[in-house]
């Protein structure tokens, strides 16, 4: 069982308290009605499945209830960083640094 640091509670809590909520930093445009089929497909259906670093959303469902973002390594399952929803995506340099 993983330990996950909720950036709102600022505490490591057991995985049982959390729910995964899919890939992070996917932008849902406000003017969706005008999206092409291809753009909609890419936005809604197509997801990364990397062996390595993944940026994903979690919800502290049985805690504070907040959605937040995480940088996780899919091989080690190690959480390299968690940060609040709305904060920018970590840069590639920062991710490289986190992996050290």
């Amino acid at each position, binding site marked *: 069982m993983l330990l996950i640091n909720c950036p709102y509670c600022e505490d490591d809590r057991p995985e049982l308290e959390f729910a995964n909520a899919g890939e992070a930093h996917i932008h849902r445009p406000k003017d969706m009605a005008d999206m092409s089929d291809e753009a909609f497909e890419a936005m809604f259906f197509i997801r990364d499945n990397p062996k390595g670093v993944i940026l994903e959303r979690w919800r502290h469902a049985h805690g504070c209830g907040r959605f937040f973002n995480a940088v996780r390594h899919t*091989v*080690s*399952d190690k959480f390299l960083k968690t940060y609040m929803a709305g904060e920018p995506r970590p840069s590639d340099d920062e991710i490289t640094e986190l992996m050290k």
Partner: protein
Amino acid sequence: MNSTSQQAFRVKARGSRIGARSVSFTFDGKTFEGLEGDTLASALLANGVHLMGRSFKYHRPRGVLAAGVEEPNALMQISRDNSKTTPNVRASVQEIYDGMKAQSQNRYPSLNFDIGAVNNLLSPVFVAGFYYKTFKWPAVAWDKLYEPFIRRAAGLGEAPTEQDPDRYANRFAHCDVLVAGGGAAGLIAAKAAADKGKSVILCDENPEFGGWLLSDTDIRIDGQTGEEWSAEMVRQLLAMDNVRLLARTTCVGYFQQNMVVLNERVTEHLSRPNVELPRERMWQVRAGKVVIAQGAIERHMVFPDNDRPGIMLAGAAQTYLNKYGVAVGANVGVYTACDSAYAAAFDLAEEGVTIPVVIDHRDQVSDDIRAQAKEFGIKVITGAHVYCTTGKLRVNSMSIRHHKASSGSEDFEIDALITCSGWTPSLHLYSQSRGKPQWDEATRRFLPGESPQECVSIGSCNGTDELADIFVEAAEAVGGKAQKPKIEDDVPTSSGMVGATGTSADKGKAFVDFQNDVTAKDIALAVREGMHSIEHVKRYTTNGMATDQGKLSNMHGLAIAAKLLDKPIPQVGLTTFRAPYTPTTFGSFVGHARGALFDPTRKTPIHEWAVEQGAEFEPVSLWNRARYFPKAGETMDDAVDRECQTVRKTAGVFDASTLGKIEVVGPDAAAFMNIMYTNGWDKLRPGRAKYGIMCRDDGFIYDDGVVGKLSSTRFHVTTTTGGAARVLNMMEDFTQTEFPEMKVWLTSTTEQWATIAVQGPKAREIVEPLVSGVNIANEKFPHMSVAECQVCGVPARLFRISFTGELGFEINVPADYGRAVWEAVWARAEPLGACAYGTEAMHVMRAEKGFIIVGQDTDGTVTPHDAGLSWAVAKSKPDFVGKRGLQRPDLIAKGRRQLIGLKTKDPKKVLQEGAQIVADPEQSIPMKMVGFVTSSYWSGTLDQSIAMAMLEDGNARMGETLYVPMPDETIEVEVTGTVFYDPKGERLHG
């Protein structure tokens, strides 16, 4: 020594674990005596019994091979009674208790005579890859031939025929240092960590701590025996408050972030366990640091006919002698490639056991060992191998040959043969921690590499062979200091060999994996047939795939493959070890989570009233809901019929408290509702309610429910009973991440409100006198009204709403008043001839009106348009969840399934939900299905069966005749609209 007398092989001078008390048990129905502290294997060996099982594939007679969890042969069914019976228990691990029943496995009719042994004669057809080559075609052979064969052959032992009455516990624990393994290394590390004030958990799978120190009685640590030294360490650890010692506790799994799972066997060794105790306890430990001190596992020699009962590991023989006081034979041959076997031979010789010869596969053996052997009068032959053994149910001779000799052999009569090819550092937990083992060419073994987690391997699992070195390593591993003690031992440690001995021309089967009956030739065949990675060899031959996870066989299999491939061992690869380390009961994993404790049961405030009225219940998500209220002598169909017709003629009262309820509040509440629901919420006036549909962004229906607008900033949202949590989750997702600028707050109020539905022509007459603060006359409070008022003087939210098609009200009162208000309503309803009705009648009545149930009539691929709900999808809103998805080409294409009604031509015939629909019943199989039934009921009100279905182009097929083929008949149906009752909706407005 005489094998027919009781415990004839008991050696009184030895046996540190053994007490004086006799313990009586049965093995295959025959009564045996052992001593307290015996394992089943040691007790049987004390009675001269080696034959303990038949092998899996060839049904060859097998004896016990090991003295620990690595045992591949002596697997037993251990029983207390029909419910307390466990298959595949290792006899070398199971402690005996009075009254224990042990049964050998995989034999018919008896262990001595087994019909399945014919497989042994057929062995040329059971070669590696046999399953892949054989069980292919024709398809019909699967039913008739292959499946029965595989089922019979797959798995040993028998599952219990009754439910497990035992209790299993689950505990969480945290500690600074977890030490897995309580041998010398583990004890030192635990003590060093505890001395520094760390909280420590030390576990060992055995009943006692000390590990190998208890098997080797010649070791002296500063003058103390291993047993004395271990006992003193345990005494000191027990006296410390910061240490928890767990015996009979296996570290079965090592997961992320130092989560380690321990399986503690609490009562498995007791004759009459205290009923207060759980049978097993699963510990989930989060450790600051994990110290792996798993030790090493001895390997057997791979030579022809190396599996006859009586042939076993040398270290096991030493353990049986020194821990259990049992000699494994009277005339014991030795075949080894490792010095440690000599220690076993010398101990046995000391107790008067004849050792006719030691065959050493190596060309050299040290002068010191030669000298000791000479003292015991033991003949040592080096540079030779065993190429043949004889003996049907017990080994009785071995034939040896010098490596260089092409012929010429010597035979030795024996009643046991002990072998050792070396020791494999146990990397199971290290590998589970996702560490990558590294090959050490000097000692030809894999050792732990870097640790990806906060963990350290010490002792023989880390390749540290010298006991004096272990003292330093173990203490330093936890930041302590230690001095090397003075160690004395009769035989020093040495490395061994991996792979098969002899030549490929040797006859007989040289077993690599005993539990799965894999021979050296099988591995050679796999390599010849193109399996060049050990992962492929493993799967093709099943080497290492039995429940022992190749504890004995992996290294041999790897070495044999590497030699044939002419590659270094690390290039052929090592397979990954998986949790659990040893087979673990399901009960242990399940713990308390079964029966009534499997999931929480949610009950409404009115639940007990329904119980008192004799209602039948059904589970709906986690809720237990009243399904119907049978009167004396009524069947379910009778009760449901009566309830429906009473509601339609008079009235009924229904507990709708399980409906999900969400309070949506804030200046942007209406704007938020506009996003979340397909329809518009701006124009809805406070005091009015509306049916809403929620989609996902893909355009498929996610949930539905009636929403009341209490004020311009407050909505009372209802969801389906099962959907409340996911709807709130989705709403939260959108408020938190997509529209964080919106001023809107969400609160789950499902359990705050008790909801009482009163439905039927007399609904107003029942409710009106109880209501104050709002006029509920028809014209003042029309259908789809909502008001905050009082009911029975209690603050309430009253809806005029209907899921039955009748005049109806839903009274929401704070949950604590639920039962009182319900009873007040009932006190008015009952004298008027109304009934209480359950979910089944509710389902029938809503189907009569064509109201859908999300999740029953929809399945995650149904759009609002498919479900006939286009009227509830706003056209002018710039955005709502699902708007873009609904424009996808496939969702607007022709030929989609649409929700329609079905009437059976024979009105008495009720369709089965899920039944498929075809247009032409005469077509050949497989038929073209054009749809399926989603809801189907008998409607007593209409005196006919009614159904809803998803049907291709359903809206264009009104009036068509279609067919529902069933196993015994084909049912003719007519396509209709979905509203079967009161199509104009006049009754709602009464």
